[in-house]
C-alpha cells in the first residue's frame, strides 16, 4: 500500500476507519477487509479510538460505531464529576502531605469552576466551595488552565482582566509572560493576585495525548506557601506536580 513519507500512517488509517464507521456499524473483520489491513492492526486502531472516545463498541453485537467523543469534539471529553472521582485519592494525599487546602479546577465558560475541594488538615472550621467560580487570570489554577489553552486566553482578555488586588495581572502582556513561565516550568504561582495575603501553586492534569483537562493546586497564606522572597517553596511545588502527574497517569492510562 502506498504511503507518503513524512505523514503518519496510523493516523491516515484511523481516519479511514472513522469514515467507514460514519457510514454504518461494523465488526473488526469487516473493517480490516474494507481497508485491506491485518485484523490485529484494525483491532489496535479500534481500541485506541475507543480509548479516546471516538468509537464505541456495542457489547451485544460486537459492532463498532462512532463514539460520543466525536459529537462533543468542542469539549475536552472528560465529565467533571468523573475528574473528581478519579482524582479523589490523590487530592487527599496532597492535602495530607502539603498541609494546605487543595482544589481541582477546570475551565467552563470562561471561568475556573472548582471541581473538588479538600480541607486543610488541621480540623479548623472550613466550608466546601465545590461548584464556585474563580477568575482564571488571577488564580494559580486558572493560570495553569490558560497556559495550555490559547483561545481561553483571548476570551479572558476580551472580557477584561479585572483587578482584584494591586498585584492582579491586568495587562495582557504581563499575563502572557506569566503563562509562558508557567508552561516552561510546568506549574503556576499566584501570590496575592486574587486575595491579599494568599497564594496558590497549581499544576496541569492531563488526559490521553497530553490534553490538559484540569488543574490541581494548593492555596494558603503567603508565608506558608512562599519563602521570604515570595518564591514558591520547592517542597510544596514537588508535592503539587507529583500529584498532578499521578492523576495524569491514572487518566491517560485507562
Amino acid at each position, binding site marked *: 500500500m502506498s504511503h507518503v513519507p513524512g505523514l503518519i500512517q496510523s493516523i491516515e488509517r484511523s481516519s479511514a476507519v472513522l469514515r467507514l464507521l460514519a457510514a454504518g456499524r461494523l465488526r473488526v473483520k469487516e473493517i480490516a477487509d474494507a481497508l485491506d489491513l491485518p485484523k490485529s492492526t484494525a483491532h489496535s486502531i479500534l481500541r485506541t479510538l475507543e480509548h479516546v472516545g471516538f468509537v464505541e463498541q456495542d457489547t451485544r453485537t460486537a459492532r463498532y460505531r462512532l463514539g460520543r467523543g466525536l459529537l462533543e469534539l468542542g469539549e475536552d471529553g472528560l465529565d467533571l464529576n468523573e475528574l473528581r472521582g478519579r482524582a479523589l485519592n490523590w487530592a487527599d494525599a496532597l492535602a495530607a502531605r502539603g498541609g494546605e487546602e487543595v482544589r481541582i479546577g477546570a475551565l467552563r465558560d470562561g471561568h475556573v469552576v472548582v471541581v473538588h475541594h479538600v480541607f486543610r488538615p488541621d*480540623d479548623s472550621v472550613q466550608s466546601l466551595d465545590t461548584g464556585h467560580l474563580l477568575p482564571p487570570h488571577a488564580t494559580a489554577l486558572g493560570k495553569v488552565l490558560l497556559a495550555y489553552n490559547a483561545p481561553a486566553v483571548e476570551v479572558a482578555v476580551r472580557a477584561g482582566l479585572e483587578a482584584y488586588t494591586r498585584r492582579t495581572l491586568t495587562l495582557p502582556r504581563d499575563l502572557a509572560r506569566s503563562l509562558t513561565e508557567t508552561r516552561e516550568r510546568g506549574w503556576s504561582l499566584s501570590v496575592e493576585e486574587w486575595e491579599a495575603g494568599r497564594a496558590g501553586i497549581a499544576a496541569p492534569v492531563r488526559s490521553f495525548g497530553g490534553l490538559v483537562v484540569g488543574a490541581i493546586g494548593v492555596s494558603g497564606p503567603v508565608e506558608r506557601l512562599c519563602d521570604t522572597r515570595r518564591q514558591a517553596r520547592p517542597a510544596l511545588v514537588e508535592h503539587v506536580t507529583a500529584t498532578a502527574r499521578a492523576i495524569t497517569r491514572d487518566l491517560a492510562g485507562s
Partner: protein
Amino acid sequence: MSERYVLAIDQGTTSSRCILFDRRATVVSVVRGEHTQSYPRPGWVEHDAARIWRDVQRLIKRAMREAGIGPAQVAAIGIANQRETVVVWDKASGTPVAPAIVWQDTRTSSMLDGLDGSFIRERTGLPLATYFSATKVKWLLDNVAGLRSRAARGEVLFGTMDSWLIWNLTGGKHLTDVTNASRTMLMDLATLSWDPDLLDIFDIPRAMLPEIRSSSEVYGEAFPGVPIAGVLGDQQAALFGQTCFAPGDTKCTYGTGGFLLMNTGSAPVRSSHGLITTVGYQIGSGEVAYALEGSIAIAGSLVQWVRDGLGLIGTASEIETLAGTVGDNGGCYIVPAFSGLYAPYWESEARGVIVGLTSYITKGHLARAVLEATGWQTRDVVDAMNADSGLALTALNVDGGMTADNLLMQIIADFLDVPVVRPMVAETVSVGAAYAAGLAVGYWSDLRDLQHNRHSAGRWRPGMDADRRAFEHANWKRAVESAVFFSRRP
C-alpha cells in the same frame, strides 16, 4: 534507612484494590482491578475466586512497583474483604469446587422458611436472611455432587474471602478473623467460637471451617519477612479506619452497598429495630469491640445498574451530572430491592419498584431518584440506630467510592438533617486493614497514634426545608410499601 510502608488489600465486591500507606496513613500508591459479576439466574450472584486470587497477586506487585519499593520495605500486610461471600475449595489442589456465592445472592431464600429465626438471632446477632454465609455453604454441600462427604473428611475447605486469600498467600493456613466469622451465621456471638448447634442446623461439617483469630495479630508470612498481620471484614475495617474506637462512634461506607456501623463497646447490644449485632474488631488478645450495623444492600450497585443495565450513563460519576440536569425528582422514587430489603425491613422476597412515573419524568429525574434512594435508605437505618441506642446522631462520618458524589453527600445531609463529614482518606476500608496490620507489628504504637492521622476533608451542611423533608420522607415510605406489596403474591 529506607522508609517502610503498610500494604492493604481491599478485596471488595466489585473490585480488588492494593494500597500502600505511609506512617501518616497517606496513600503512596493505589492500584485496582475490577472482576466480573456473574448473574447466571435471577437472584444469583457469583464470583470467580481463582480469578480474584490472580488479581490480588498482580495488584500486590503493581502497588509495590508504582511506589518503587520491594517486599523488604513492606512492614506488614492487612486484608479487608467483602463479607459473607462463600468460597469452598479443594484442600489438595487449591481449586474452588464451584463459583463463589456472593452475599447479594438470594438463591437460598426458600431455605429460610423452616428455620428458627429468634434462636439464630439470639445466638449470632443476625436476622434470618440469605445475606449471611451459612445457607450458602449448605446450598453448595447439597448441590455439588459428593461435596458433603468430602467436607466431612476434611478434603474441602470453606472460607470467606479473607480465608481464601490468607490460605493462598501463606501457602495453606486456614484462618479467619472474628469479624468475618461473626457474619457466617455459624459463630456464637458471646463465645466467639463456632457453634455446634448452628453447625447442626445448617448441616455443615466442622472440619471444613477455618480457625477463628483476632483482627490484629500475625497470621503468617506472605513473603519472607512480610507478615499478614491484620484481617477485618470490609465494613469493620472502615469502622476501624475511621478511628471509631469509642462507644457511639459511627460511620457509613458507600460502595456496592451502604453500611452504617456504630461502635457499642465491649458488650453486644441487641437491636429491636432490625439492626445487626456484630463484632467490630478485636486487637490481639484484647477485648472485643462490638458494633450495631445497618446494612443497605443496594447503593452504588444501583448506579452501576443504571450504567450497565440501562446504559443511561457511561461512568458511575456521570450519575451526578445527569441528576444535576434537574432540580428535584419530579415525583419519582426508586426502591432498589434487587436482593430483598435489608435493614431495617428484612424483606428477603421484596423486589425493586419505580413509582410516580409520568410523561414528565426524564432520565435526569431517574438519576436523581437513584441518588435519593441511597439517601432515604441511610435515613431508615439512622432512624433505627437512634431508636436502638437511645442517642441522636449529630453528624455522619462517610467514606467509600460514592463520597466522590457531592450531590449525593448533600442529599444525605438534607435527608438526615445532620452534617455529613468525609475524612481525609476516602479509602477507609484499606486504612482500617492497614491500621490493624500496622498495630500488630508495632508500625503504629496504639489507638491514640492512629487518631492523630484523622482529619476531615469535607463537610456538607443540611439545607432542606423541614416540611419538604417530611413530605418526601412520607413518599419514600409509601414507595417502600409498594415494593413489599408487589412481592407478596396472593
